[in-house]
């Protein structure tokens, strides 16, 4: 497959692994966080970590958009979906995220009209096909997905679609990274930066990591060679005493990002003063809401939503997993009470969640020996 096969070549992979091995100092333990859940998924799908020296540890970051949605937001969605005449639309993974009293899928089983869509554009199409119903789209995701929602809201207005609105739970990547870097219980040596978020925001927003915290960053693609190369870049910076933002994924990530996407996001959204992240708590200026200029398309203003904060289940340790403090299999309910079929925590729901990646690729319990 063009643009894909080249980045899965086993020989090149082994060569990169050899270079990585030659760079690490025996006796030093390296902790590199892959920020994005897509990277976590690829690492375990392709066994990238098996090619690494035992003293290079990959720590899984908070970049799975489903995993960071708090239970209260799910409850808001379910309450909205139960409104008379509403067709509630959302992405597939979101339907399985547990709220305080079941998931959207449970609500669907209870009679709510909840439909899975692949894009906000699909949700708008449903609205146009059902002019007598109110169609609500539950928007989640980082900066990769937010432009898609913004363009759809602009299109809804331009086409005069009156029965479409959106619950905006979009989040931004930089504030949680800063929160993690400020966290006293986490020591990291470097970061693999998120590839497709950077397609939108560019490399510039990550420059605070080397500038303020002295840690190297390599923005990476999602194929196994992309990830190995990014790990090599981070380790090389550490070996040479450098720290900067390097871009391994130049084939789609321009330094300045996608300016049209940033413009449309600035027009349609504004920052929330605070947004709650599952396991990480409230983080300032980390969530997006629909701006006043597009108020009529904001489902939170069109309908009443409970907006109640709900504590995570006590047994669930998604917070520690999202912060990289524990490995998924160290959670008490991992693989027993909490499985992808019956998740307790969000990290087990999405295929990009660290727990689901470990579970689906057979990493039930394993401590790698440290050199």
């Amino acid at each position, binding site marked *: 497959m*063009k643009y894909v096969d080249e980045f899965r070549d086993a020989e090149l992979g082994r060569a990169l692994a050899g270079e990585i091995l030659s760079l690490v100092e025996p006796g030093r333990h390296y902790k590199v966080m892959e920020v994005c859940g897509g990277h976590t998924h690829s690492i375990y799908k392709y066994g990238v970590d098996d090619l690494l020296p035992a003293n290079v540890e990959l720590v899984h970051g908070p970049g799975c958009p489903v995993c960071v949605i708090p239970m209260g937001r799910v409850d808001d969605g379910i309450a909205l979906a139960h409104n008379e005449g509403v067709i509630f639309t959302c992405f597939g993974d979101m339907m399985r995220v547990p709220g305080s009293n079941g998931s959207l899928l449970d609500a669907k089983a209870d009679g709510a009209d909840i439909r899975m869509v692949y894009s906000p554009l699909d949700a708008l199409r449903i609205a146009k096909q059902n002019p007598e119903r109110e169609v609500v789209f539950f928007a989640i995701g980082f900066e990769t997905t937010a432009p898609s929602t913004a363009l759809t809201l602009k299109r809804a207005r331009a086409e005069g679609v009156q029965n479409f609105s959106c619950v905006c739970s979009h989040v931004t990547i930089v504030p949680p990274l800063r929160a993690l870097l400020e966290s006293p219980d986490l020591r990291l040596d470097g970061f693999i930066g998120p590839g497709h978020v950077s397609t939108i925001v560019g490399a510039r927003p990550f420059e605070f990591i080397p500038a303020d915290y002295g840690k190297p960053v390599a923005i990476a693609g999602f194929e196994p060679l992309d990830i190995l190369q990014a790990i090599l870049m981070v380790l090389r910076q550490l070996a040479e005493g450098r720290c900067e933002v390097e871009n391994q994924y130049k084939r789609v990530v321009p330094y300045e990002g996608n300016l049209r996407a940033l413009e449309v996001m600035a027009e349609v959204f504004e920052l929330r003063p605070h947004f709650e992240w599952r396991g990480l708590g409230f983080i300032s200026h980390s969530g997006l809401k629909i701006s006043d200029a597009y108020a009529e398309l904001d489902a939170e203003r069109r309908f009443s939503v409970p907006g109640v904060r709900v504590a995570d289940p006590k047994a669930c340790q998604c917070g520690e997993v999202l912060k990289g403090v524990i490995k998924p299999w160290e959670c008490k309910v991992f693989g027993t009470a909490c499985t992808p079929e019956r*998740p307790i925590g969000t990290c087990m729901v999405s295929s990009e969640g660290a727990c689901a990646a470990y579970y689906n690729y057979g990493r039930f319990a394993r401590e790698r020996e440290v050199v």
Partner: protein
Amino acid sequence: MSEAAASAPVCGDQHCITCGDDGDPMTVVRVDAERGLALCTDESGARSTVETALVEPVGPGDRLLVHAGTAIARLVKEEPE
């Protein structure tokens, strides 16, 4: 959790294309410039309508990276080092 939840669609081998940080390489087949949309095909031949506002202008044969129904970048050929 109910039986309905237990039988929910699960993303298998591939990422969940809907909500992750995922991007699909697609090729433009036909362009509706007036509406800012393009009919695109993925590697398996499946066709879908894609929003092209972020990467315009596009033409048939262009390769795009598509996320949640929106083209977020043009694909530029690059070999791994």
